[in-house]
């Protein structure tokens, strides 16, 4: 689906990515693990065009996209659900969702249908559809951010910590939804998540990052059993 070759990214003088390469196949769920500051979010931001690599390239179905603007990349079907929600606080839930579909021409019946699907997945949002973004609780905002990302009907969904600030029951719900859209809509997902055990349990493959490099990769089941991964990211939990 898309691949990243030897990408280097810096914020001013601070180097964030030191030559990472990874690939995500069609219909896969791939997760990126790593400590805070390892460069996981930076990777997502680079793929979605919010940052541009100093070196290296990013190919979407064989075409280079790393010089395109974020807007152009969104139009090619990559949707980014950023960390920390970033919903539009002064707009209603409905308006937030409508803006999620700005990567394609406006067709109301289609929009209404998509929104109905979102309300089916996240029933809380239907009740709140006329509420302003800022009045939502943290967890509701997170659900809105995910729903807004899905409104783009993306081929590729980049998700940055979707479980952040969610109650346990909703964390389970969100991961169920990710699995479901992957299966039913054949959406490819690249996921950054601190809840490594949960993320690996729904992923096909995973990459482990440390200080801007990829240090480990493999099928999710292998990573779950890897002693280094367990020590570093699973709090030393034992294998079940």
């Amino acid at each position, binding site marked *: 689906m898309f691949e990243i070759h030897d990408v280097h990214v810096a914020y001013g003088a601070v180097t964030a990515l030191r030559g990472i390469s990874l690939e995500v196949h069609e219909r896969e769920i791939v997760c990126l693990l790593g400590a805070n500051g390892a460069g996981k979010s930076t990777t997502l931001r680079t793929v979605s065009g919010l940052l541009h690599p100093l070196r290296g390239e990013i190919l979407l179905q064989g075409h280079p996209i790393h010089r395109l603007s974020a807007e152009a990349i969104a139009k090619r079907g990559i949707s980014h659900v950023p960390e*920390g929600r970033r919903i539009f606080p002064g707009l209603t839930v409905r308006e937030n969702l409508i803006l999620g579909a700005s990567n394609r021409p406006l067709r109301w019946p289609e929009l209404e249908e998509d929104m109905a699907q979102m309300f089916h997945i996240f029933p809380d949002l239907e009740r709140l559809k006329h509420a302003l973004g800022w009045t939502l609780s*943290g967890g*509701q905002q997170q659900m809105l951010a995910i729903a807004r990302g899905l409104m783009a009907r993306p081929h590729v969904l980049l998700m940055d910590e979707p479980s952040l600030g969610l*109650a346990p029951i909703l964390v389970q719900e969100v991961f169920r939804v990710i699995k479901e859209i992957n299966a039913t809509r054949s959406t490819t997902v690249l996921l950054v998540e601190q*809840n490594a*055990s949960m993320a690996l349990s729904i992923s096909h493959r995973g990459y482990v990052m440390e200080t801007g490099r990829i240090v480990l990769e493999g099928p999710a089941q292998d990573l779950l059993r890897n002693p280094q991964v367990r020590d570093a990211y699973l709090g030393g939990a034992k294998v079940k």
Partner: protein
Amino acid sequence: MTSNDSKKAPSRPRFRPGYLALALGAVVVVLLPLIFTSRYTTNLLILGAAWGIATLGLVVVLGYTGQISLAQAAFYGIGAYAVALGTTRWGVNWWLALILGLAAAFLAGAVLGSTTRQLGGHYLAMVTICFQIIYTLINTNWIAVTGGPDGISNIKRPPFLVPLNTAQRYAWFALAALLLVAGLVWWLRDTALGRAMRAIRENELAAEALGVDTRRVKVIAFTMSAVIAALGGAIYASGYLYISPDSFNFDHAVAFLAMVLVGGSDSALGAILGATLLTFLPEWLRDLQRIYLVIYGCAIILVIVFMPEGLWGYAKLLGRRFARPLVLAPARGTLRVGGRGKAGEEILRVEHLVKHFGGVKAVEGVDFAVRRGEIHALIGPNGSGKTTIINLLSGLYVPTAGRIHFLGGDVVGLRPSRIAHNGMARSFQNLRLFRELTVWENVLVGAQREKSREAETRDRAMAAIEFVGLPDKANEICRNLPYGHQKLVELARALAGEPDLLLLDEPGAGLNQTEKQELIQLLKRLNAMGLTIVLVEHDMSLVSQVATLATVLNFGEKIAEGTADAVLRYPAVVEAYLGNREVALGV
């Protein structure tokens, strides 16, 4: 601060480049009037000094405190007219006239500051513009007092050691005043007040929650800025010996704003650079006749676009490799948190707490009590009112009904800063750091307490930084730190005030499971030191490992209370909140 103090507080840096700058400044003050001797250039020096002083006022209110003021020319005018009227019509001594002018500016600044303390951004800009325009109207039309559009001539100069009867002597006087004010503004930056101002600029809400009385500090900033501007005006009036309302109108207020932005609003040196440039640039461009204003305008736009931090900010960026980090000594004591009361006594009691936002019932009659030494978890589904309760306890929201007793006193209606001083500290769900300040400065703001001396504040701050294990990051700007470290800074900042009770809003969010284990150890250590903690958290494994008691909320009401293990088995809790219990607890 006396030299004695600096010996006792080893955390003070031994060398600060600012002192060198002051010494250099003194040399420049002496040399400039000797180099530029023509009447024309000497007058420009005097004008530059007067404008520079007015711009330094803006450094305090805009650069440090982040409050926009477009009324600076009005205060500048108040100082000028006080000296003009005082030395001509009223026949009083120059210094007495100056004091009258500063007093008038003090009052006007305090009034403007107090009436606008709730405003920000464009509303504040609008109100200050109105103030400026009202001033100009009075100045022009109250002819009996101000002389109207004709202005006032024959203004006297101050007697100061020698008669300042030549332009050169007066230029020395004006430049010395500029240097003095610049030194004061530079010194202010790293005092407790200066840090409080910059904390307000970075995040007003967090500053208030940490104990900064933001309303009071904003009024002080406006007042200081007004008094400084009035001094500049007085120096201008006696320099030019004639004034008219045209020199104090809205155009000048905008010019002062341009000077501070072009020079770099966060620094006294920047203000002087900006004022110098914008005083002399029009004179250099004068030969270009009609297009000079176009070039002048373009130059300002270019600086603001390409050097958003101003000339001085840009110079600092270029010279950052020469900057030396502040040398900070280790703390002399350890952190003392948790207060001195008896373990087990009730320190927080919440009675029938209600909060409605319009029609939304966020909290609907919640009761609970927290005893000293407890870690009390508030859990519940998203939107059940947990963060609202934290905001009510810390005073950011005023309850619709109900009582909150903290350490025996009713805290409903108190300002958040007051509640913080009473011994309650908090963290925020989405980080609210002072992003452009260093770790050290962030924690210092949290450590500041009324009547505590600077050395004690520094000691407490360092102890808190050491406690979370970040002493080697103390000089880093917070914005550049990874998320996990930023969370630790927020914790250190809350601990530095040595609270009795700490409110934590989702401390584990965004940490991986290994980092969460470290957080659990940290919370247990704090608890062992006697700190009482109220914890909002969604990670049930974390809650069950640290919490001694848990209160479960749903739709703003309490649905269960008890030990964490017990409540997490209640069917209602499992259904509304946990879902799959094994997955949620990670067992």
